[in-house]
């Protein structure tokens, strides 16, 4: 009975605390589809005028569809690179006997703690030198390498939970080390892979500073840069349009998150590897 009560109390507290968020979201959705009134908090009429950016290219802006495609390519490539490299590097760091392993792990953690802004100038110069400045490829490489330390650590944690005997058993059964990794170990850290791909997808979908600085020209633009561009118009800012683009930008992540948030929690649950 007591437990029931305390549950109810915490629910109420949480509700009250998140009330401002609900209100914010409510008006956000409302404003996107209506013409705002100047003297009342309730809007005047329904409209789709804020969504005009979907059908026509705004002046001085690239097409929204190209931008969306760019963002998809950017996020997709980062996820792919992070998954492939983290799952192999994490395995090596977890299982293979190699010199300076603990130092390597320490360095990875150090890399993870660098804010990307502090590296920006150096990265800018390097990209320009190797001719990848202002290209999506350059940004993808940079973003992926910034995500990697975290990914490798997470994957190492998941590999650590897989019993060593399973691997040895596979080797005894006649399989090569690669086959063992691919057929016996990977399926067991699937929750980790899923969580990591969601995490890095959301992270790169929301990435702003890197594409803004390293790939500024119109044909390389991602949605975050497009959205920010609306704010820095020299004329008055069209807030209806800004909000509509914002919603358009947010939607994929929201939908994605609704379906996958349980898997995402695996990362924080201390690795969800199966028990032997």
């Amino acid at each position, binding site marked *: 009975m007591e437990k029931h009560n305390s549950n109810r109390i915490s629910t109420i507290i949480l509700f009250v605390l998140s009330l401002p968020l609900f209100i914010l979201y409510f008006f956000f959705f409302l404003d996107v589809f209506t013409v705002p009134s100047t003297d009342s908090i309730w809007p005047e009429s329904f409209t789709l005028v804020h969504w005009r950016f979907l059908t026509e290219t705004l002046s001085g802006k690239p097409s929204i569809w190209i931008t969306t495609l760019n963002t998809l390519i950017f996020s997709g490539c980062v996820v792919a690179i992070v998954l492939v490299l983290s799952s192999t590097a994490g395995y090596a760091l977890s299982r293979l006997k190699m010199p300076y392993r603990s130092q390597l792990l320490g360095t990875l953690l150090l890399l993870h703690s660098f804010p990307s802004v502090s590296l920006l100038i150096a990265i800018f110069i390097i990209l320009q030198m190797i001719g990848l400045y202002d290209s999506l490829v350059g940004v993808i490489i940079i973003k992926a390498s910034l995500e990697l330390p975290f990914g490798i650590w997470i994957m190492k944690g998941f590999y650590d939970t897989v019993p060593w005997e399973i691997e040895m058993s596979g*080797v*005894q*059964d*006649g399989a090569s080390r690669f086959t063992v990794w691919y057929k016996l170990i990977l399926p067991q850290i699937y929750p980790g892979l899923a969580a990591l791909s969601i995490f890095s997808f959301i992270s790169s979908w929301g990435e702003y500073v890197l594409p803004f600085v390293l790939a500024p020209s119109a044909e390389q633009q991602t949605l975050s840069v497009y959205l920010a561009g609306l704010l820095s118009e020299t004329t008055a800012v069209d807030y209806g349009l800004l909000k509509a683009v914002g919603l358009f930008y947010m939607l994929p992540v929201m939908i994605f998150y609704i379906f996958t948030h349980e898997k995402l929690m695996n990362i924080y649950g201390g690795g969800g590897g*199966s028990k*032997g």
Partner: protein
Amino acid sequence: MKIILKKFSKNFGQVEVIKDMDLEIESGEMVALLGPSGCGKTTTLFAICGIHNITSGQILFGDRVINNVPTQERNVGVVFQNYALYPHLTIYENIAFPLRIRKMEKSEIDQLVQEYSEMVGISNLLSRRPMHLSGGQQQRVALVRALIRKPNVLLMDEPLANLDAALRLRMRSEIRRIQQETGITAILVTHDQVEAMSMSDRIAIMNDGKIQQISTPTEMYSDPKNTFVAGFIGNPPISFYNGVLQKNYFVGTAMKFELSEATLSNGIQEEQKLEIGVRPEYVHPNFGDEVEGKILFIEPQGRETLYDIELDDGQVIRSIQMGSQQYQMGERIQWGMDHKNILVFDENGENIFSKLYGTSPKL
């Protein structure tokens, strides 16, 4: 297949775990590596299957040296302590895994899996996943998965350690039956002497990285080579007592008795330090009167009763007697020992009676 270890040594960095170990296992034989934890028995097992490289010496399968043969090609079946089943595969897929790796025909795999799973009575579980099986069932799956590719040798690392007592008893005889049925050479690693004695043809008892004695279970019990073996084998354990030889008598601080001709003819000298070992069943009221002291502790065990007798110098000698409790705690008694079955060890802890006396380096 015959397995031979020749002067096998294994170091981990500076630590010498196994030193110059020699062991021969006949084809079709089941040998138990028995010893306390940290004695190197699992290291030996892992060296045979190739998980560990060996530091020096040779390992032979038949007459082929396999020191540098990769693990995958040694064709060794291993049952790990935690079974190491593949959790994401069904039991069928688990058992079929080694065959599929060998790219065997599907129909052939089907037939083999069916045949082997029937042998251990798990053919009705093939579609389940390991986590839905009980410990004993998982054990059988691990065993069958190790056996199905007809390995040169079957290695088992503490296979019964994760089972409850009743199941352990049943699996003991079952593993033995399957081993004999398939005629496979097998090595069992265990720290449980009962397991080693009941399951194997011969026992290799290890301590500090060295084999102390290799014998059949019966011989190991009646003719231990040294005090370590005598103390490790037997439950309840043997009792030891220190003394010296004085004019044909064994003299300790609280016990004295005349040694037999047979003992004296083994080359022991006057004033030599000796240690006798006597198993609990050879201490009994009917045997004489040299064990004098008071009963310190009584453990009724149903069929038998175990008495701990404290001699006047504080040393303890155990006695086990059939039937229920006949004496009281603290009671003073004067019991005897069956002199034919007293083991006598010299100052190095070597059994002077043993056939193996003086045949190999001392402890």
